[in-house]
């Protein structure tokens, strides 16, 4: 019977390949999702959770009421804290910037002078998220530029040092509109605050977790341990947005997966119905020469099961390949733990043939109940 099944599949290649494609699609989707997702669960010892947070680290003694009023701390901390943070192994991040903010009076106006260090970027693939301001240059906020008619290329004097205006910023609708950004070292110099900063901004931080731990608490504890003079503020809106995005991705997946399964099942079912119709005469003659319902069912269900087996193997390979290629982009901390899961291979070898057989059940029943006399009479 197996030879009959294989020969028929070779004879009707297109039908076979389309059915196989349906199984591969379903298995690939499952495997790629679960292989990548399992990476975060598999590590029982150092369970990791991939969650990115955006943090502001400010001096511990900061008066928070005033901080929220002005948007920055009056206190400072050493600039080298950025190196401490950059070199830790417990926390992963994508971008870190050291910042010094100071309110000054300039040309009879109150402005915020902000010095930015070049970003420490861990991954080569990441682009800087903050301004990269070259020495001798400044970026001027929208309100300042508008009121003082400052244009790109102008030279302005700030606290006795001349800077070239490299860029006039677009309106932001925030206090950035009354801010002048410069290179950290130069701003420290003009403010006479060498080696001092009052904020470290860490973007897309990830941390190691144990079961039951809240990522925010762990991040806060770990950062404050590394920088005892620092206080961690979570930029809530961004973190919440990230969480919402992740929840939405899960929601979409849980919605898409059943749809894909139903579509694949209908697809397989329709192809099997067409196959039964194409094989009416074959079924008729087999019936005539003594094939019982069981043997006819074996021909169709056997084919479905065989396609399920082949599809599960190919789907596993493709799904694993996709997870290995794109998983590390999504699950940054657990990137190294994303590997082929042979338990999933076992599951797909068991479930894909079953899925394929269930999808082919109705067509198989049609084949069994088909009246052979009808086709034999048709000649």
């Amino acid at each position, binding site marked *: 019977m197996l030879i009959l099944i294989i020969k028929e599949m070779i004879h009707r290649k297109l039908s076979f390949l389309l059915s196989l494609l349906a199984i591969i699609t379903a298995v690939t989707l499952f495997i790629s999702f679960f292989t990548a997702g399992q990476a975060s669960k598999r590590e029982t010892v150092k369970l990791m959770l991939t969650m990115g947070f955006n943090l502001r680290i400010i001096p511990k003694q900061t008066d928070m009421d005033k901080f929220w009023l002005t948007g920055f701390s009056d206190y400072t901390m050493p600039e080298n804290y950025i190196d401490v943070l950059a070199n830790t192994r417990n926390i992963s991040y994508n971008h870190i910037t050291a910042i010094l903010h100071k309110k000054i009076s300039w040309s009879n106006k109150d402005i915020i002078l902000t010095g930015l260090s070049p970003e420490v970027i861990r991954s080569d693939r990441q682009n800087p998220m903050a301004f990269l301001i070259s020495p001798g240059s400044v970026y001027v906020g929208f309100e300042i530029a508008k009121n003082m008619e400052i244009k790109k290329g102008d030279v302005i004097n700030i606290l006795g040092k001349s800077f070239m205006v490299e860029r006039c910023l677009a309106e932001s609708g925030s206090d950035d509109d009354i801010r002048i950004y410069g290179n950290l070292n130069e701003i420290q110099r003009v403010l006479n605050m060498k080696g001092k900063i009052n904020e470290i901004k860490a973007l897309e931080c990830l941390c190691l977790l144990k079961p039951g731990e809240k990522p925010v608490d762990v991040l806060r504890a770990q950062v404050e341990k590394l920088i005892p003079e620092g206080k961690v503020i979570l930029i809530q809106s961004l973190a919440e947005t990230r969480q919402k995005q992740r929840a939405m991705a899960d929601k979409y997946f849980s919605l898409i997966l059943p749809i894909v399964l139903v579509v694949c099942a209908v697809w397989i079912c329709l192809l099997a119905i067409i196959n039964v119709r194409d094989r009416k005469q074959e079924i008729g003659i*087999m019936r*005539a*020469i*003594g094939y019982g319902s069981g*043997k006819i069912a074996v021909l169709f269900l056997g084919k479905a099961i065989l396609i399920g087996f082949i599809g599960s193997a190919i789907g596993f390979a493709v799904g694993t390949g996709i997870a290995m290629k794109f998983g590390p982009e999504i699950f940054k901390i657990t990137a190294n733990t994303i590997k082929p899961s042979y338990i999933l291979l076992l599951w797909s070898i068991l479930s894909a043939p079953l899925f394929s057989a269930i999808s082919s059940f109705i067509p198989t029943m049609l084949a069994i109940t088909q009246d052979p*006399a009808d086709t034999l009479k048709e*000649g």
Partner: protein
Amino acid sequence: MIYIDDVSKIYKTKFNEVKALDNVNLKINDGEFIVIRGASGSGKTTLLLTIGGMLRPTKGKIIIGDNDIYTMRIRERANLRAKNIGFVFQMFHLVPYLNVIENVLLPSKAGLNELTKEDAMELIRRLHLLGREHHKPSELSAGEKQRTAIARALLNQPKIILADEPTGNLDPDNAGDVIGYLSEFHKNGGTVVVVTHGVIADQYADRIINLKNGHIG
């Protein structure tokens, strides 16, 4: 012996009823060569399929040997066919993805008889298909296809061959060959029932039965 006892077959459609067989009574002795002749729509094929256990009559009995075949279970009837009856059809009904030898061996997959490739090769030799055994039906002539179908029908060494217009798609030479093979089977003691509207089988027939509008004339 095949005993057709007061058999009627009515096809019901949405709008009307068609009486394909109307109180047919016929006794076919073992080793007899019967030709059932009639025009298209006279009920020949219906009668043949009814005799072969493939089409339940609306009324009446078909008895083959000691078996009232439509009182048997479907599985038992399939077994009876596999062991005792060979079918030959006008359109050959070969399995398109199997070659000649695999088509001839198809009844062996039904699992009731111990049949070997050598048995199939012997039939292929007898039916002058040697050299064509690895060809698919699409690569065969009409005569070769019908000889393959006859070889398949003979593989189980049945007692009865039921042939529905076996020469309908063949040229006179091939038609003569096919009837010759059926005659050879008959000479060896087999029962042959051929339904046809032609006359080519008449010379081999022990009896010719005319069927008209479902009645034996």
